[in-house]
């Protein structure tokens, strides 16, 4: 399990939906994410998994990331704020 510091994502609302996607795609039902989690903190979050995650988030939230966003989110916190505003 990765080192997670900062506020953990909850099980409900936008956070819950983000968590669900990450758990489905990475196949880890115990996975926890925090504001500061990045790809290198999570086993299995490689470039292929990244494509799978980004696509699955797009389809879950009905959004389309820009080409830049596909690779530019600094951490889970930034991703989550974008999705929250897009879903809001």
């Amino acid at each position, binding site marked *: 399990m990765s080192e997670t510091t900062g506020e953990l994502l909850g099980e409900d609302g936008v956070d819950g939906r983000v968590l669900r996607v990450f758990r489905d795609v990475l196949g880890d039902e*115990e996975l926890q994410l925090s504001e500061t989690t990045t790809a290198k903190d999570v086993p299995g979050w490689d470039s292929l998994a990244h494509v799978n995650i980004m696509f699955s988030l797009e*389809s879950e939230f009905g959004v389309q990331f820009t080409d830049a966003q596909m690779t530019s989110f600094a951490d889970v916190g930034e991703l989550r704020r974008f999705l929250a505003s897009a879903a809001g």
Partner: protein
Amino acid sequence: MQHVEAADEQAGRSQDPVARALATVSGEQVPTQRACLDLARALSGAGDAGRAVRWAFASIDAGEDFAGWLAASRLWQRHRDDVPRPARRARVAVLGSYTTTQLTGLLPLACARAGVDVEVYECGYGLYRQELLDPSSGLHAFDPDVVVLAVDAAEVDLPQLADDPEAAVEAELGRWTSLWDLARERFGARVVQHGVVVPPDEPLGHLAARVPGSRSALLRRLQERMGEVAASEAGRGVALVDCERLASDVGKRVWSDPRYVHAAKQAVSLACVPLLARHTAAVLAAQLGASRKCLVLDLDNTLWGGVLGEVGVHGIALGAGAAGEAFSAFQRHVLALKDKGVVLAVCSKNDEHLVREAFEQNPEMLLSLDDVAVLRASWQDKPTAVRGIAAALGIGEDALVFVDDNPAEREAVRELAPAVDVVPLPAEPAGYVAALSRYPFFETDALTAEDAARTAQYRARAQVAEQRESAGSLEDFLRGLDMRAEVAPLGPENVARVAQLLGKTNQFNLTTRRHSLADVESFAADPAWHAQVVRLRDRFADHGVVGVLLARRAGAVLEVDSWLMSCRVIGRTLEDEMFGVLVRQARAAGCTRLRGTYVPTAKNGQVAGLYERLGFTRDESADGAAGEGATGWVLEVPEEAATPGLVAVQVDVAAGTGPRGARGLQQDGDEVPAQRRQEQEVSR
């Protein structure tokens, strides 16, 4: 962290997770992919591997959400060794022109769902030609049974505009068929070729439809030629996945998203990879003979609108009106499936005679009873009825697909006949055709002339099976009765009962001659008369004297004057045993010929064919001698009569004698004991 999670779990979810997930699934007309997956997860957590896998399969039937498929795939992988593996197995190599990792990853799940256990190999993307040619490649080491050529239009080497379209297409076709040849020659593998999807972007616009050299036209032509070759002898072992149709169904801009093509070489959008995996698996399974054979249809609100028992034969919605049209369209689709070889069966909670009336008398019905191989209309529970259909057809339950509008019936079949596939119908009948059409496992590898006739063949088979089944169960029933018959001659102790039976028996009575007690007493004293007075016992009751046969000897002919049985023992093969005794009596009396007469009455129609069934031939010279409509029958006395042997017969008629005690004329001992018993157990 573990304990925090556990606490969350308890705070938020007090109920049993399986019960909660099941309630969600049951509450939906068509359970969503998510709800099925949640149930699968709950079952997995509860340790119920078999049902967890079934619901994981149901989840991927229910939708194409990519993350949901990934989750289902992991869940299935986790329990793969806990459930029986399909008998059909294959080593499948995916050779792709784009990033096929996700497709390859989902293929084992999709194939397991289709009834094939597969191991997969993914070749480096764009390296398929090299891997096929290089004997030291990983592909050669893997030695596949099936090669999936997962390619996209970008990989097709055809120009935007060709001067000689025919030559261009043939050259490109040759490049692909050479790959098929390699796969077949090197590995003896079957080939599943993904067809070309014509991109929606065409610089020539609508003009392309008129220019055979346009890239759109070339791609279409290539696809057509691939189909022609695959259908020919040269294409043996090659099947195509019609990706053009799949892409058209979901929309071509959904099928391929340029952002992912450019960023990640995903020529097929991840939104469509599950769909492609499902159909690749269906085609592959069909090649290996794992497709489903029989469509089991509900009637009320499935094949027609309304409840037949309430609205009547002419009240059901069919044909005219929006609702009626939707059901008619569904029937047309079902008939088209039948024409390609799918066997049709009906499973309905209804009165059978009413169902038959609806099929025969409602002019809007497109399906006829002849289209239906097995019709089960009764009040039996559906899982049992569905299993009965499989048994009647002589096919496995895993060849059946059950279609019903009622979620409760579908769940019952899912739970109690788990090998049967269940197709949920949406709330609106207008969606029925799409729901069934998207079900992929009626895929067939080839179309033959026999396909269209298959329902007729299965129908005949089912009828034979049902006869055998009923004969079998009837035989078992009768054998289980432990019947014992005692055959006695006429005597003081039974003449009254014989006269009574002669006077009142109507149904099983060949001549209905109402001989009086005095007559019967005179027969008893006359050596020319040979009688059987039959008493029957079984393990439930002693039925008393229930059968009488009176025959009169004239020279070498033994003529049956009267033959009757009480109606309570009809249908127990007792008459066959009485015939067996009659033959022995005739032989013992030195007779060579038996004569019988049937005199029709208003009530004895059931024995009109008795003599014919027993092997007698019609003697028209004797017709009418015993009254109007009477028929005469003769039989050369055989060595012995073969009888069903379901009744143990104890014969107490001294063969060849009329009155009790006297032996036949050819017998040498006049002093042979009067009540000599011939005890004989006749049983098989």
